[in-house]
């Protein structure tokens, strides 16, 4: 009965987001920084306009604080209406356990597959041919953000790629700047490493290591180069005593640091601070070396609810999130790329347009999160955290341990 009913409601709903009876729907997420909050407000606005009520369940502290709460609530039998997860394999088991709602009917009715920007986005929502989540944005990790003013202060031109940036580091030091801002959290360090691998090693190397889990390659000379670059980064990051990524971004915004390797979400922070791309800061996708971006990003999952009205509201929300207008509004604020290719992004700034171009040209590399399990991910995070904070660990040692982790990965 359920799929049928879902189909029914979906079809009556198509196109117009009215006529629905008002239902409160609790949405949990961990978007609490300035740009993130502004973006999520767009969803809330659109959902409220459809006659329902968005009950905001933001939990600060990032995914590591929020995720256990979300999982506990879903498994504890008190699920929320909808919840954020990252793309990838995080929610796999929840789906397998039948706790997450099947959205296939809605997706087919609305023709998601036809308008999706990259097929991999829907694929990561799919299990056994059924769609279980709404991808809402594309985030790419492979960006280098540079402070124009900082380089001006140091009396050198703004670099155009990673190597120039490394070369400029001593001058920045002289000018009393930290060349590379880097937060202390493990995911930031591991992220930076992956970016180095994507950009300096290229797509093939990334896939060999993370998709094929080829331990030989991981121990080989190509990856050794990446570790050498990471050692450079380690040196350049010395003196950035911050934890959160946006604090590190803030160092770039306030010109205390030369640059930061960070995903495109950092753009939201520049925007909130009133900085203009090209004038105040420079963005280099693929570190200016290898212009590829990954399709990381967020997705929303809808736990199975007993209440019929709420179930219907869930569908409405899913539809609102996928809707072209909300996609634009949301992603402009969030600083990420929309998941639809049929949207107009004239309002986007230079950096976003750069990203969009690369995306449409197919310069896409699969997100590492989709290739490895969270478990392997944290193992590598642990290694990178150690590596970046302890200069006594040589790149060679670190690489050896890296190869071991890859060898044992599932």
């Amino acid at each position, binding site marked *: 009965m359920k799929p049928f009913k879902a189909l029914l409601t979906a079809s009556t709903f198509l196109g117009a987001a009215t006529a629905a009876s008002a239902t409160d729907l*609790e949405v*949990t*997420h961990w*978007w*609490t*920084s*300035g740009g993130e*909050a502004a973006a*999520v*407000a767009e969803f*809330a606005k659109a959902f409220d306009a459809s006659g329902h009520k*968005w*009950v*905001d*369940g*933001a*939990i*600060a*502290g*990032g995914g590591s*604080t929020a995720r*256990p*709460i979300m999982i*506990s*609530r879903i*498994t*504890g*039998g*008190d699920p*929320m209406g909808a919840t954020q997860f990252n793309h990838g394999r995080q929610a796999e088991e929840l789906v397998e356990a039948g706790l997450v709602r099947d959205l296939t009917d809605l997706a087919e009715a609305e023709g998601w597959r036809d308008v999706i920007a990259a097929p991999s986005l829907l694929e990561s929502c799919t299990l056994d041919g059924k769609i279980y989540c709404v991808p809402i944005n594309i985030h790419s990790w492979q960006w280098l953000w540079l402070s124009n003013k900082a380089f001006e202060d140091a009396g050198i031109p703004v670099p155009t790629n990673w190597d120039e940036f490394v070369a400029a580091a001593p001058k920045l030091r002289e000018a009393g700047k930290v060349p590379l801002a880097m937060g202390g959290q493990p995911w930031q360090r591991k992220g930076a490493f992956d970016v180095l691998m994507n950009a300096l090693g290229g797509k093939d190397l990334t896939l060999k290591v993370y998709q094929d889990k080829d331990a030989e390659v991981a121990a080989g000379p190509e990856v050794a180069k990446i570790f050498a670059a990471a050692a450079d980064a380690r040196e350049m990051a010395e003196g950035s005593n911050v934890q*959160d990524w*946006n*604090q590190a971004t*803030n160092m770039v915004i306030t010109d205390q640091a030369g640059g930061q390797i960070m995903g495109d979400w950092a753009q939201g*922070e520049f925007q*909130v*601070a009133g900085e203009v791309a090209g004038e105040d800061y420079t963005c280099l996708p693929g570190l200016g070396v290898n212009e590829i971006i990954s399709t990381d990003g967020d997705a929303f999952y809808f736990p199975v609810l007993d209440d019929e009205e709420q179930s219907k509201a869930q569908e409405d929300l899913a539809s609102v999130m996928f809707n072209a207008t909300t996609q634009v509004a949301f992603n402009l604020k969030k600083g990420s790329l929309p998941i639809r290719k049929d949207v107009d992004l004239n309002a986007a700034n230079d950096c976003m347009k750069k990203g969009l171009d690369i995306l449409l040209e197919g310069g896409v590399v699969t997100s590492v999160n989709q290739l490895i399990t969270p478990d392997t991910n944290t193992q590598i995070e642990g290694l990178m955290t150690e590596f970046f904070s302890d200069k006594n660990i040589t790149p060679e040692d670190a690489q050896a341990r890296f190869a071991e982790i890859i060898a044992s990965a599932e």
Partner: protein
Amino acid sequence: MAEAGLIDHTDAAAGSHSRALEGPRGARPRRVLSRRNIILYGTLFVVAVYYLLPLYVMIVTSLKGMPEIRLGNVFSPPVEITFEPWVKAWATACTGLNCDGLSRGFWNSVRITIPSVVLSIAIASVNGYALANWRFKGANLFFTILIVGAFIPYQVMLYPIVIILREMGIYGTLTGLVLVHSVFGMPILTLLFRNYFTSVPEELFKAARVDGAGFWGIYFKIMLPMSLPIFVVAMILQVTGIWNDFLFGVVYTKPDIYPMTVQLNNIVNSVQGVKEYNVNMAATLLTGLVPLVVYFVSGKLFVRGIAAGAVKG
């Protein structure tokens, strides 16, 4: 002149007696600045500074504007006192889309804390009483498990408890959270009450039994009225613990009953651009206000109660 006369008089009195009475007489002189006092008060003062410094920094910072925080050092008093951080922390700080600061969580915390404190103390005091006065077979085994349980990190128990609450059908409800608090407060509180009731003279208990009072009669009519101090201790410990709890509050409830600490975490961890240290400090102080007041008001009773409950084992 009267004074001089007095001195004369004593001199005369001393002179009229034999030389054997010379030497110390009267009250031993007490010097305020004795070496002992200097060391004693000096040490206490230095230690007090170590304890007070963080509070001082918090208060001072919460009264400064952001520009001043960036420039000055943390210990300097505010040049311009502003209460805006406090207002912001209480009423307008944002988490996600909700911009009503801590105010929302305050009443939730009250709603969580009061029943949890009452229930946990009620259970633990009865446990302690049963253990101290009505030893039945196996009681000590359960108590030992309980005490060992006190050492188990909460994180370990998160999952099993989710399952237990789910099976009981009270996951995500206030009842569930109150139960969880009672369960985790039980080991230490039971230990305290057990020790306290053990120190009550056993003859009193025997007299009451001869007088025909039963289990509950003795508990309510004899033991309870005698145990105010230990109840104060238990209350202080529980109010503090439950009010400050974050983990259980966030995992076992839902947003409309999130306690204040969840909001605090949200405010402190949602960094919108620069970290607003002044707002964070104000929020921190606001959240800690209830337990702090409880301590300042009942500190004396606390020591007395501890003396009653913990000294004798």
